[in-house]
């Protein structure tokens, strides 16, 4: 609206608003944040879809992600190459899923991806151990870690294959109302 500099065309903004949970202002703010991360790399003008990707190391340094124990996994799960390089679109995607208005199913899918460290489409004990270690500063004894993971699997595993499939995970999420509010990053 009468910006001195056009960052996006109206069509682009429409597309963003139609495909994400953000408003025009938020998209522009997100662009600002993205630009801030690497001012010399990210162009101000996005009207011609420049191909620009920021590496994981830059993105996890955002204050919103910096202290998150899953920061690397979050960024990795949203990057197309799986290595954590994010283009602006993927960046928007990430915060769109983590925004307040994203529906539970969508959040659950990405939460599952984040917790699935070894990308085998199951949360196995190994994944849970990693999650737990990240959540507790690795201060639990191995036996305790073992017990907690076993308990978790026992509680959430419906089909009895000793690991959590997405269905198990979703079922658990649906019974945990807080998930919607906690799986949420404000930008």
């Amino acid at each position, binding site marked *: 609206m009468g910006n001195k500099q056009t960052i996006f065309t109206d069509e682009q903004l429409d597309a963003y608003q139609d495909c994400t949970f953000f408003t025009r202002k938020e998209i522009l703010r997100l662009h600002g944040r993205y630009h801030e991360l690497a001012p010399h790399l990210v162009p101000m003008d996005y009207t011609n879809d420049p191909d620009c990707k920021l590496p994981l190391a830059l993105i996890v340094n955002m204050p919103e992600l910096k202290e998150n124990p899953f920061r690397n996994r979050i960024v990795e799960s949203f990057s197309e190459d799986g290595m954590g390089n994010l283009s602006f679109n993927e960046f928007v995607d990430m915060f769109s899923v983590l925004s307040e208005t994203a529906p539970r199913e969508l959040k659950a899918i990405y939460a599952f991806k984040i917790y699935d460290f070894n990308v085998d489409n199951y949360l196995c004990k190994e994944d849970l151990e990693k*999650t737990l270690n990240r959540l507790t500063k690795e201060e639990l004894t191995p036996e305790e870690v073992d017990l907690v993971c076993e308990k978790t699997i026992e509680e959430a595993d419906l089909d009895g294959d000793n690991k959590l499939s997405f269905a198990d995970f979703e079922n658990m999420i649906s019974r945990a109302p807080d998930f919607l509010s906690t799986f949420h990053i404000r930008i």
Partner: protein
Amino acid sequence: MTSYSSGGYFNPAYHDSETLEIDRRSSSKTHHTNPYAGEDPAWRGDRAETHNTFMGQSSSDDVVPRGGWQEESWRGRESIPMGLISTRPGSPSWKHGNNHSTFQINPDSQYDQSPPVRFPPPASGHMTMRWRGMTRRRMSMFPNTDLAHLVLTEDAIRNEMENEEQDLVKEFVALSTQDRIRAIRDLPMSFEEKKHIRSQVLAFRSSKQSRQFTCFADCSENVSLFFRRCGYSIRSARQTLELWQGIMKEIGGKFGTSVLSYFMFLKWLLMFNIFSFLVNFGFITIPLLVYDPLPNIPPNVSFRGLEILTGAGYFNHTVMYYGGYSNETLMGLVEYNMQLAYFFTIAVYMVLCGLALIFSMARSFKTNYVLAESTSNGAWQLLCSWDFSITNERAVRQRKSNLRVQLKESLSEKAQMELLTLSEKLKHFGVHLGSWLLSTGLAVGCGASIYYLCQYEQQLATDGANWSLLQEAETLLVPFVVSLMNLVVPLFYSLFYKFEHYSSQRTQIYALVVRNVLLRMSILGVLCFYWMNVVAKKFSCWESKVGQALYRLVIVDFLFLMLGSFFGEFLSNVIGTRLLPRLGVPEFDIARNVLELIYAQTLAWIGIYFSPLLPAIQIVKFFILFYLKKVSLTQNCQPPRRTGRAAQMHTTFIALLFFPFFVGALSMVAYTSWSLTPSEQCGPFRGLNNTFSVVGVWIHDLEEIPRSQWVVWIYQHVIRSEIFYFLITLIILVIIYIFWQVTQGRKDLIGLLRQQIVNEGKDKSFLLDKLQNFQKSHPNKKPKPRNPKKHTKRRSDDRSSGSQSNSNAMVQALLARQRLEEEEERRRAGGVLVPSDISTSSAMMQAMLARQRAEDQEEDLHQMPDKHLSSSSALTQAMQARQRAEGQDEYYSTAGFSEDPVNGSSAVIQAMKARQRSEEDGADDRDDPASSVSSVMMQVMQARQRAEEEDRIRWAPAPPQNPAPSGSSALIQAMLARQQAQNEYDDGY
């Protein structure tokens, strides 16, 4: 699997190292990068190098068999060095001859157990089902794929995806714009893909529309675009207007969602009050002010300053209170009936409040309570409890340690629960009963004391207009005591938890909340009772008096809230940090603070009738409170140690706000307007029997206007008829019953479906077992025709069939040999005399023999030790067998075979054949990448040589007991043969 733990794969340290993890992941990928192209990546090569080079190549569309197989291939690699290390004969660590069998069988049963049969292709039909299906398909497609996809080629998969996309686009086209946007947003894809689908949908639509009237289509397109943009701008603007966004983010980042929920609640209440202020001010006050801008204040009343606290005196004559409003019909541009306006504004406001509360409560219940179960606590703690919004480093650290403590507690709690004896249970019950009695008694006592205090005050108070300052100050006594009770007694309650032992944190919080609610209800109930029954009869303008009392309560409550946060948070912070460090920095007590808010809001609701502008005070109060609490929180508090289930707490609070408090306030106001006689001298309803009769008067007036008969009819036959309410109640009851039944039915259904999932899981594992057994019983049918190059697959079959595994046949032979040597040794120690010519010969010979025997054993044939041991020709036989074996090891050439003069026992031949067969299999593999094979071979040979050297060293000291007949020709022959074999072998490289 115990024998396994020495291997890398099950070593936890190995898992934790990042690099190896990546290495492993990518290795499994590289291994199957393209199973159809027939190339076999050098799986036996240097692991690290290969994997690193392949890492970049693992593209997203490669087809990777999941689960069992990749583990399998990995494990196979691992087993080679393992076997070699253990070739050392007689090494003390080699104890698990028996484990060896588990080592072979177990992997299959474990890894092949779960073939990746999942995510059936999405059935066409219901929209959400469809995209969910697609989601899953996609999810499964990228990192790994399921078994079914193995059969498909990449092209087929791509086609299928494209088809699915087309279907999706078609479905979206059929939707309305609103739904379409929502559906696209909800797609679990990256933005690029969404944009692609969106553009396709748009293109499809426009092409469809262009066939219709182009102009119209254009117009409608433009209009819809315009409206959409308008909608977005409005949303944007609303976000800009959103209060305290930055502060909310900061609080959430530092203290987490649960503390944030308090501030959200506060903000919500503030909005509520702004709304009610606007309504009251707009419909009651403004018309009056327009008509008569100056308040008719008696000349002897002046503003003294104390009014701000007491609300009496000067304020008494302003529009602040009920008494300040007239009962006239204001004659301005239009006629404005103040009576009706007052009545309907309050009534409509109350109804709107009730509806808003009911709706937000119902929504909150729906999302937070209906499906919530307390059973999955551990899983919840692990996977759902982390608050992603926390950005503060200290908070993160604290949260981590809190979680650790909680997990430890939950582990120990389980153990503790079982140990509770009957006497302990009784003790707990006694303590609970005692504390409940005590708290209820306290609440009742508070109520009673307030009542007597009020009576005392009422004796002092006079109806006069002019109070001295002292008299005015005395009116503050009751609100002061009430607020003091509200401050102190809850603190006292919170001491109880030191004695009580609740099974869970939540019960404890709820108990605390219920006690506090009881206290506040009893106090408010007593006050209301006093106002209704005593004040209403004594004072001439009693509504204003009640309004003043409420005003004072609100103001004093505000002061005490400030004091509370000063004492409750600041002081305990000082004490905790300076004086008594063991107390620690205080936590922000969400439950207590929210109850304070609820109480404050209840006062405002009760006061809405008596003092229509009370919401204005409330707005100021909440506004200041927000900043106050924020500062107090950031300066003094630490995040709550127990995060509980914030969402459920929030629901509980809204429910509390609705049920005892709002309903209480509503009934109080309703009682006042229905049953109490309004004061004669002041207020809009002077001269009426009760407030509600204003409607009757109005209807009576309406009867004269001919066109409004229907209003009269409605009033006569609906509002005033009992039958109508009776019917309505009946219908609502029936509807409630039906919905309740539906809910029960759904609950049952959920249970059934869950059971079904469990059953499916059982079926799956049962079928898998069957399949496995089937594979075992038909070992040789499957592997070769299907995929001759895929040794991983075949290996598993080979192993399950029990024949020699091709990849590490050598290793197995060596292992078997070693086992036999062990046996041999044992046998000797046990006193079984072994013929002397053998025992005296070199270790070499024994090794050969053992080897031979091992080969025999592997074929499940009878050992014939006597035969082999007795004659020296047997020795030569052994030598030759060995020679042949070694020849095969290198080239699988049969050069040395034909000259074999000795027709050995059938056992030997059979053993040879078996070996040959296995090596044939091995040869298949070996001719792919020669270098890697050779390196492994080399390794094997070296290890073996080393083992044999050790053999020699070990056995060399032994001979003295039995002098060696060194000249035995058999021995020489054997040595020669060996040498020859060795030479040939060396030439090979």
